[in-house]
């Protein structure tokens, strides 16, 4: 029987929901399970309600789904909130010191701090670990790998805390192993080669490292911070200058200074932070300084919902800054795409000397996927596209060329002087008010788009290519929409998927080709007005017959997409 189990771990901030999710998910993955988990949290340090949903299957997963089969309730609110989602054979594992009594009709496994850690006053701190052990006990998964992972997780808190957690996990395992449960993983075997459990933003950070990033500057802001932290933790090891900036304006200008001087540079932000960066975005374009910008959007306007998700900044990223200038916008749909597109972003930025965006959101940032090693390349090629060899005469940083790309040299690295200017400038970089030069320079910059568009495509397609029903989506919505399409085909409704991950310059021909013959075009986006649909119409003249939109701060689920299709029918 196919395995597809949803485990929801809920509690207040500070109760250790996050602390146990990763060890639990990893233990299940190492046992042979395919794991996908999402995080839903509030903008606070203690209290409130947060939960993670770990989905476990015996086939690859790229999406969360609705429903709960195992509810781990570290407090009473978790039971109250998520009880309606519990499936008929669902079970609640709960902390008896927090949840006095389960509502009638619910199957439960109560864990009391006294049972888990006899004689330890602070026993309640390890109920989360006890629950982890209990999950493995129920599913008949060996405990030992989890104990190793818990050791790593709590090592920094000292031997005593590690001991408590191991004891609690073991006791939870024993209590649960005596219980019958509908799903058993006893027959599963570990994968022949180790799999990887990685989140979207971790993969972006790794992609940057693999691409040779040497300079990172940023100001903390959810959900972008994950990339910044992941790079900061590896800065010394890989010789990366990671600098926390005084504000987002400084972050982008620091990165431009470093890039101008020759380093591969990355900055990033979210929502309002990008509002602050837009002036220097134009500076990057005007000075033709390569730059990779991670723009992790969140629901707005203004502060909006800081820890939730949205695809509402597509229009902003495409249009930010004054006047016309070339840029590239990439929007990954999985961690593996996040890795590959980040590496690509650096090469595009260097080749075309312009800003390249990675447009992400909380849904991708905090979604953790099981990937195989083969989902990532063996190595990443670096193309710095710098001019080499001796120059001829006076160096012109902005030499007029047929493809718009001027030979790039670095200051202090040769006899040439490198002069860059935010004013309109002559080919040698000095400011000018010669309006004829202005026209030539403006056209030169825009000419770079012609080459750039040739390098983009990046469509993910699935389903029969001649299916009349075509679902279009972009960025982080890939997983849920792809699963909706798969379910449609399983239920004998032919449907195809077209997912865009390389959004600008718009891959017009590739998209037109993929949409050919579609009788019913559905666009699914996590925003309120269908921003990609507008872009599609602008670029191809085609537009969706139906929009499936969501703007409540939570990501799509396959079920939501399917309901959206039905509502329309």
């Amino acid at each position: 029987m196919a395995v597809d189990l949803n485990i929801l771990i809920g509690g207040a901030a500070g109760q250790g929901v996050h602390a146990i999710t990763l060890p639990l998910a990893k233990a299940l993955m190492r046992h042979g399970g395919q794991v996908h988990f999402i995080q839903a949290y509030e903008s606070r340090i203690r209290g409130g309600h947060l939960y993670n949903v770990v989905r476990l299957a015996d086939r690859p997963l790229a999406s969360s789904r609705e429903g709960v089969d195992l509810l781990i309730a570290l407090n009473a609110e978790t039971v109250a909130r998520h009880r309606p989602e519990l499936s008929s054979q669902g079970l609640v594992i709960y902390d008896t010191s927090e949840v006095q009594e389960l509502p009638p009709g619910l199957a439960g496994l109560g864990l009391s701090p006294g049972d888990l850690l006899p004689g330890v006053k602070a026993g309640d701190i390890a109920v989360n670990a006890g629950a982890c052990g209990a999950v493995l006990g129920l599913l008949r998964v060996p405990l030992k790998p989890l104990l190793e992972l818990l050791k790593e997780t709590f090592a920094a808190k000292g031997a005593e805390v590690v001991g408590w957690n191991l004891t609690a996990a073991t006791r939870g395992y024993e209590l649960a192993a005596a219980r019958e449960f509908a799903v058993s993983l006893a027959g599963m075997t570990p994968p022949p080669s180790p799999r990887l459990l990685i989140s979207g933003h971790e993969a972006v950070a790794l992609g940057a490292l693999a691409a040779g990033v040497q300079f990172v500057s940023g100001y903390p802001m959810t959900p972008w911070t994950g990339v910044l932290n992941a790079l900061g933790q590896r800065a010394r090891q890989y010789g990366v200058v990671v600098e926390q900036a005084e504000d987002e304006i400084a972050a982008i200008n620091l990165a431009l200074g470093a890039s101008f001087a020759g380093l591969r540079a990355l900055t990033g932000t979210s929502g309002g932070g990008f509002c602050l960066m837009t002036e220097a975005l134009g500076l990057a374009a005007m000075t033709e300084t390569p730059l990779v910008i991670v723009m992790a959007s969140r629901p707005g306007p203004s502060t909006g919902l800081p820890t939730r998700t949205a695809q509402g900044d597509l229009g902003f990223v495409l249009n930010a800054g004054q006047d016309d200038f070339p840029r590239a916008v990439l929007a990954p749909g999985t961690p593996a795409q996040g890795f590959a597109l980040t590496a690509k972003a650096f090469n595009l930025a260097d080749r075309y000397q312009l800003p390249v965006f990675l447009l992400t959101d909380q849904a991708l940032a905090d979604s953790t996927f099981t990937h195989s090693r083969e989902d990532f390349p063996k190595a990443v090629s670096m193309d710095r596209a710098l001019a080499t060899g001796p120059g001829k005469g006076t160096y012109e940083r902005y030499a007029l060329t047929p493809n718009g790309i001027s030979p790039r040299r670095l200051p202090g690295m040769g006899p040439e002087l490198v002069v860059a200017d935010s004013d309109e400038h002559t080919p040698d970089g000095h400011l000018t008010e010669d309006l004829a030069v202005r026209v030539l320079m403006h056209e030169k910059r825009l000419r770079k788009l012609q080459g750039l568009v040739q390098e983009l495509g990046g469509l993910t397609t699935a389903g029969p290519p001649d299916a009349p029903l075509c679902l279009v989506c972009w960025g982080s919505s890939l997983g849920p929409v792809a699963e909706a399409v798969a379910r449609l085909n399983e239920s004998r409704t032919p449907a195809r998927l077209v997912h865009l991950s390389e959004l600008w310059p718009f891959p017009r021909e590739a998209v037109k080709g993929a949409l050919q013959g579609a009788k019913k075009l559905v666009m699914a986006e996590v925003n309120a007005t269908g921003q990609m649909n507008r872009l599609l119409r602008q670029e191809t003249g085609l537009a969706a017959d139906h929009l499936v939109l969501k703007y409540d701060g939570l990501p799509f689920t396959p079920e939501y997409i399917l309901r959206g299709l039905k509502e329309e029918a």
Partner: protein
Amino acid sequence: MLPLELYQGVEPAWCPGCGNFGMLKAFKQALAELEIKPQQLLVVSGIGQSGKFPHYLQCNTFNGIHGRTLPVATGAKLANPELVVVAAAGDGDCYGEGGNHLLAAWRRNPDITLSVHNNQVYALTKGQASPTTDEGHQTLLQPEGVYTPPLFALALAVAQGCAWVARGFAGDVAHLTRLYKEALTFKGFAMLEVLQPCVTFNRVNTFQWYRQRVYRLEEAPDYRPEDELWAYGKAKEWGERIPLGVIYRRPRPTLEEVHPGLAAGPPLKRFVERPMDQLLADFS
């Protein structure tokens, strides 16, 4: 000493008699005496008449946007510590638009020179008040006079432990040259504010007005630039007497020396390989 012609840029578009000419002359003289070649030098400027400064020189140039000279200069210095990096900014650029970056630069202490063109007015936009305009000064936008006190940026710099703080005067080129030379060779963040009269839009703080007030600090009998409290007093002295010279000098490790990302050498010269399997090892 290198020939001065080495630094000859295009003809300046400043007003005749502008205080910026004295700065340009002193700066070139300092470069020549220190034998800093144009190729070694990067001047980062912003917007305003000061923003044009590097165009009138021969050097590597990044003429960025208003207020943002310091982060660009800091990024470039971290990338290539062998560059001699100078940020050229006006009082509006540095003390107004880019104030937060100035606070950060004092704390970071990159080994760069900040040269502040202070003419106490927004000249490029035709004479509005700047953060350093004196109270009561009437402008087009403040016809009844400025009603807020000026920013004492040098006093703030001393209070925050900026490693090197000085004031020069564009009307005393020989003295200003010495200050530029010390700033360019000082290891750490050197903040040099230069009184630089605007001959068109500031009819109060003229060359003559300054000449009647300025004096050279280092000639004072109690000169103690290592003494924070003494320096603070001098940094706040303004009005009848205006001190020139190095006000505060207290070296400490530079940003490049303490930054973990540069511990193994500058990334531009030393690239650390990132093998894929090593990168992915944390995730299995």
